[in-house]
Structures are given as C-alpha cells and as structure tokens.
C-alpha cells in the first residue's frame, strides 16, 4: 500500500475536503464551532457525561479497552440538548454526507467519546466492519467528528492510518499495530472520515486532561441504524425537526422504513 504517512492539512472548503477524503480517507475543517456555540456544546456534553456517571448509566463499547474506567462513552447524545440537533444538520456536515454517501442518508448514531487520564486505546477498526466483505467500491458510511476540546497526541487524539481506506477491507488481527498518526486538531474542528479508514482512540497519557469528541455516524439508507431512534429519541426532536433531520432519522422514507407502504412523515 502506497499510503500517505501524514494527515492532510486543514481543508479550505468542501471541495478540497472531499478530495482529501478520497486520497487520505479523511479531512480536517478547523473553526467550524467557535465562541459561545463551542462552549455551549461542550458544557452540554460534559453535563450529560457527568449525569450518566453519577446515575450509573454508562455503557461500555465492545471495541474499547475493557478494563478502562477513565474513558467514557455517551450515547444518544442527540436527545441530550438541542445544540446537538444543529450539529447533525450543520450545512458543512450535510455537504460532506451528500458528497460522499449521496442522499437520502441516515444518521446511525450521535455518540461521544471522552478520553480521561490513563485511558486506554481502542481496537484498530474501520467503521463499516458490520458489513461482510468483500465491500462495495464506495464507502457505506461517514463519520463527522466534532472536537469539543483540543485533540492532542498526549490526550488521546483519535489515531488514523491515512490511506488505509484504499485497501477496501477491515484490518486483520495481525495488523493491529500498523503505523497510525494522531489526529491533532484544535477545539471547534470538524474531522470527517469515511467508513473504511482504519482508526482507534489513542492512549490518554496526561495526568489531568479529558478530551471530548462527538461523532455523527451517517450511513447509506439501506443499513439499520446503530441507535434505535424510534425507541430513544426525545419526541420533541421529531416534532420540530426539519425535513433533512426527518430523513436522517428514518421518519421521511423512500422504499425502506415505510409505514403501511408510505413515508411516516
């Protein structure tokens, strides 16, 4: 594999970002969230995380390092604060979804991964591993990651194998230690990576830093959503949702996900 060994520089616009995704498997857009918007999203996420921890509602994820009580996953982030509704339909996020997956697409999940001091690495993986190989020629999903803190090598920035998406397969068991690059980006950045690129959470080697990323996972519309929105979504979101959000959550459907043969909204 003649894969690039480094990350692309921040992309200036969607067109350049899409070119980076084709070459590297990912692109970085800086300064997407800033000022009060960033502060509000960050406060909302840490409040939800603290609430889960206090109430014993944390749930582990199978790809995480099992004996880890420092890192924390937060699920169904979408229902935790209306600021996250803006996130899933942010014009830049939807431009990448349309550019990589086409439309309609589905939101499989909106979850967060907060690394904590001493937190362990994840298993190296590609996000579309639930699709049996051989894979189709195009990516079947897209992750739009929102950095709510600075992502640094030391605090557990997601580690990526740039260009690994071109292999069009999942990493084998003996490839868990292939070289990866820490995805360093300032708070407020959006990192977009397609579903075949190999990546994992990095080690958090700091004594006192947590870093939070919110991950919007989008798929082509034929796949079952990771989160069962029909059970877990705050009903207010459906009530006030835009047409784009209704599509993303499966309420505005064509061909699949119908109710009595027709779109439910």
């Amino acid at each position: 594999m003649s894969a690039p060994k480094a990350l692309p520089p921040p992309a200036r616009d969607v067109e350049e970002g899409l070119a980076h995704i084709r070459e590297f498997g990912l692109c970085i857009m800086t300064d997407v969230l800033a000022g009060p918007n960033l502060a509000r999203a960050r406060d909302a996420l840490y409040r939800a995380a603290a609430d889960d921890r206090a109430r014993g509602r944390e749930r582990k994820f199978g790809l995480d390092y099992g004996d880890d009580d420092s890192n924390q996953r937060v699920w169904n982030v979408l229902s935790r604060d209306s600021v996250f509704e803006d996130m899933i339909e942010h014009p830049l996020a939807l431009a990448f979804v349309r550019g990589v997956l086409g439309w309609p697409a589905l939101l499989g999940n909106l979850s967060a991964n907060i690394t904590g001091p001493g937190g362990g690495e994840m298993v190296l993986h590609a996000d579309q591993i639930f699709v049996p190989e051989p894979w189709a020629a195009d990516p079947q999903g897209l992750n739009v990651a929102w950095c709510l803190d600075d992502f640094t090598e030391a605090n557990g920035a997601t580690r990526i194998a740039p260009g690994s998406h071109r292999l069009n397969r999942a990493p084998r068991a003996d490839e868990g230690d292939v070289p990866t690059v820490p995805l360093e980006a300032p708070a407020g950045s959006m990192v977009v990576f397609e579903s075949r690129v190999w990546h994992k959470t990095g080690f958090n080697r700091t004594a006192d830093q947590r870093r939070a990323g919110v991950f919007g996972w989008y798929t082509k519309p034929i796949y079952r959503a990771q989160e069962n929105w029909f059970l877990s979504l705050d009903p207010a979101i459906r009530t006030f949702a835009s047409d784009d959000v209704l599509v993303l959550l499966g309420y505005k459907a064509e061909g699949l996900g119908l109710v009595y043969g027709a779109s439910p909204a």
Partner: protein
Amino acid sequence: MTGEPVGALNVRPGQDDGQRDARTRLREDGWCVIPDILSPEGTARALERLWEAAAESERRGVATYMPVLDPNVHNVRVFNLLDIDPMFRDLIRRPTALDLVRSLLGDDFLISNFTANIARPGARSMPLHSDQALVVPAPWAHPWAMNIIWALTDVRLENGATLYLPGSHLCTDRSQLPADPAPLMRPFEAPAGSIIAMEGRMWHTSGANVTQNEDRALLFGYYTAPFLRPQVNHNATLSAETQAGLDPDMRRWLGLEADANVGLVQDVFTPPQPEPDRAAEPVA
C-alpha cells in the same frame, strides 16, 4: 469483469429432486420448495383471512394497489400483515421457515417485512430484479436476504408463478447477467400449502396471470441479515397492543429492542465486559 455471462448460469437448473436436504438446495440452487406445510383446510382458512386482511387494510386507509410496483390493478398487495391478524405472526415464525432462514442468514436475522401479493386474472409481470440488488451495492458475494413465500393457492406458470433466472443468485454483479434473460426464466411451481424459499440474490419477476378466473395468492415473508434496515418500520407499523403481545424472540427478530448492530461488533472482537453490579449500589 467482462460483459459475458459466466458459468453461474450453467449450474444445475434447480429442479426439486427431493434427494438433497432443503437447506442444501436453498444454498446451492438459491431456492427450494417444501410442500405440505399447511393442510388443505389450513391453506383455505389462511386464504380467507388474507382477503379479510385486504379488506381491513382498505378500512385503515391503506390502498392494496401499488402503481409503483405493478402495471395494473389486477395485483392486490396487502401490507402490514403482522399487525392485522395473529395468524400471520404465527406463520412468519414457523419452525420450518426459520430453520431455512437461519441456515442461510445465521441466528441474528431480522424479519424485514411480511406482505401478500394476489395476482388476479389479467395481472402482468414486474420488471426483472433481485431483492438484494435493489438495495445493496455490488459485489453480491453473500446472501443477505431471503424470502419465504407461502403458496395459498396452487402456483403455476399460467396463474402468475414467480419467474426466476436459474443460477443468477451466483452473479456477483450485473455484468454476469445474460443479455436476454427472458427465454431462460423458469416458474416456481408449487401446490397450495407449500413454502418456496428464495435467496435475496436470485433474479426474478412476478409472472403474468393469463387465466380467466384463477387467483394466485402468495405471502412474502422477507428476512435479512441484522445490519440491513428493515423494509418497514415495525416500531411504527405494529400497534402498541400488538407489540405488547410479542415475546422476546419476536421483539428481537423485528428489531424492536434497543441494541442494533453493536451486538454484532462485540461478537467479532472482544466479548462484552460484564457490567458491574450497580443494582446493589445506592443511586446518589
């Protein structure tokens, strides 16, 4: 890939020789027939209740004619059978059917849909398609979907038997299909009370009913691998009353539980960590 058909279409024509196990025939030929699953009385009762379900569907405001699927009104389509009559909730989980489903799709299958198509005299054919190719991008290396088709009447060429392209379930992309499939198409013929199992990659079309006075009634139980989105949103189509009456197996098979494909991910890699026993701790 070249544009020429490959050997896929030269496999045995898939005649039901009865010598091989049904699961083997399904895997190798892409289809099989198992007769006498329903008794003659049971079949007649099921057909009667299907017509009642069609009437109930119309009463609920759901049309039984789908212009997008069928060229004329002689095909009667009934959706949401699972909500309308408990008989259909029984048929969809019959052990013989689920045994075939598990043998092809594994234990973690989903019930994607259960619908009926009654071809009345004058019903015409749909375009050629495979259920999997309609929604899943190539290559089609594995079966990710299948139909269990319940024959509530005799099914034969003249009354609109489903026509299939033998061996086409082994085509991994469109370039391997023959340029002119029409002369190669064969009918799935089966007596009333049979089930016909067909895997999702088989290219097929509904036949034309050229009889004067004979209906051809089929139920289509559609099952998929667990990571594919079901054709219908069972969370919304099944009434609260119906959902309340489902046992845990049915809830899982219908995708009504909270966990979706993360369970599969956990099986592939590390086993899930046991949850600490928080129930014993006070919630501060």
